[in-house]
């Protein structure tokens, strides 16, 4: 497993898939050098549309292309796609049920250099609140690449949330993925860590640390935040009696919120939601130390698991 940036995995896969599926068209908002859609643009210039720094326009043009039978992948920074263009997404993509694929790069804290203007830490919350939307967060570059054909061949709106960074590698080429189906990466019986995106790799490291203490943690990767794999999560709640959620996103409304909503249906077990506190982050020199500083370190996951165990026993 090599450590390549998630965006690169996606960008190359998109260009390769463009060869197979002539209906795929790609839009960008002056970020193709960043989102890596330039690979597609170089191979298929007639199917690539750069609309400039105008994300609302990009989404609407994508909507028009979808109405005309194309499969548009609209790419921009997550902060802009999920906030500046959210009205277009709500009205023209979700409500109108147009077959638009929104690919949100530089999500979470991964644009560590630019700081909170470019961080996207509430996008899962606002995207998953929209009816008709599917929200997908890959864990690494291999998975990001694997989603391209799956998302293209699924009929309906999708928000694919990508990191700028090289997250810890989790998957190898044999990975099989399905929308709405979580992945059990490690069996365990004491506690379950439900992780998404960049926190999946970190959670696997946390499981190793917990094992040293004799704690057997189950690791679930929930790549599809919506529709959520309720069955897998509720089964883990029943079998392990307590959960930790881990995400590079605000603690408000993201994976933690979605899991909490699921648990209240039938298994209200102890739950610790690990994420970015309800505050704006700051600038850093690398993504890893920023994540650590925001409370997303491996040791924070370990601590959260210990808290859940204590609450289980209380």
């Amino acid at each position, binding site marked *: 497993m090599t450590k390549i940036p998630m965006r690169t995995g996606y960008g190359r896969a998109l260009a390769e898939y463009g060869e197979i599926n002539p209906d795929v068209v790609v839009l960008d908002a002056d970020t193709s050098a960043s989102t890596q859609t330039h690979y597609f643009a170089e191979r298929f210039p007639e199917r690539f549309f750069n*609309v400039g720094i105008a994300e609302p326009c990009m989404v609407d043009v994508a*909507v*028009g292309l979808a109405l*005309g039978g194309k499969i548009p992948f609209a790419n921009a920074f997550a902060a802009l796609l999920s906030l500046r263009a959210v009205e277009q997404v709500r009205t*023209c993509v979700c409500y109108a049920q147009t077959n638009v694929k929104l690919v949100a790069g530089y999500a979470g804290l991964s644009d560590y250099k630019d700081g909170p203007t470019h961080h996207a830490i509430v996008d899962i919350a606002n995207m998953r609140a929209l009816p008709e939307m599917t929200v997908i967060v890959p864990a690494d570059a291999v998975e990001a690449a694997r989603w391209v054909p799956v998302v293209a061949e699924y009929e309906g709106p999708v928000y694919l949330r990508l990191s700028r960074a090289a997250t810890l590698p989790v998957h190898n080429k044999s990975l099989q993925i399905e929308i709405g189906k979580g992945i059990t990466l490690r069996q365990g019986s004491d506690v379950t860590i439900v992780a998404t995106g960049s926190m999946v790799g970190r959670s696997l490291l946390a499981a190793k640390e917990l094992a040293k203490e004799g704690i057997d943690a189950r690791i679930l990767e929930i790549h599809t935040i919506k529709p959520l794999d309720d069955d897998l999560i509720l089964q883990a709640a029943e079998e392990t009696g307590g959960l930790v959620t881990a995400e590079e996103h605000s603690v408000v409304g993201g994976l933690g919120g979605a899991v909490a909503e699921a648990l209240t249906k039938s298994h209200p077990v102890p739950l610790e939601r690990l994420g970015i506190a309800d505050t704006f982050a700051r600038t850093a020199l690398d993504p890893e130390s920023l994540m650590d500083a925001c409370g997303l370190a491996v040791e924070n996951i370990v601590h959260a698991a210990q808290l859940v165990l204590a609450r289980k026993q209380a």
Partner: protein
Amino acid sequence: MVYHPESLIVELEERARELRLDSLDMIYRRKAGHPGGSLSAAEIVAVLFFHKLRLDPQHPNWPERDRFILSKGHASAILYAALARRGFFPPKDLKRWGELDCHLQGHPDRLKTVGVEMTTGLLGHGVAIGAGLALAGRLEGLAYRVYVLLGDGECQAGVVWEGAMAAAKYRLTNLTAIMDYNGVQLDGPVHQIMPLSPVLDKWRAFGWTVLEVDGHNTRQVLEALDTADEIHHQPTVIVAHTTKGKGISFMENDSNWHGRPPDEAQYRQAVEELQKGGEA
């Protein structure tokens, strides 16, 4: 350019009058809707639906059909009236507009109403969506044209101009916008709320060919739409000077009639005026 016989003009004018009566009746029955901007667009909508647009109500998804997007989705009444009169669904449905189980929503919904190409109502989206649809037509090698009907107040929204830039960049000659320039919006006259003038210069500066017509002169509207077919280097906008609430004396140019239904006495007077207009 085709010369259109006077008989066609007379027929389309009668269609416009019929659409006005339908719209008024619908808004009166529902006690909701937007009379001002429905009435101002009557000739434009009549010319499009009863002459210009290549449509087949029996095959509403015909791939080569022309596409019409009502960007000013508040004027849904007149769109529904036109679709019904054109045969997409029975005119009796118009009387049930807005009822819980009726396919006619407050604002157009492409998933519920046959013939509605795009869900609209929250203003500003039509030009950019139309640009995307025009691009798709080009990529697919289909000869359809895309028509977008814009409100003037709507042109205060930035995304309209983002879309205008995109359409110009890609030289979308198969895209025609029609701006219903009635000069009045919800809060008052457009020139007081947020002036658009000089709007012709704005469109030209954004890379569009601009045609200017009296939007209640059916022949001018018709000929401008024909002219747009002959523009082969830019998208075209037809700036149509219109009167908000056109055809009903007490509604004309009055922002109070932007989104208010008439009461019974007003309705009777309005119907009388529209019927007289037909005899004149």
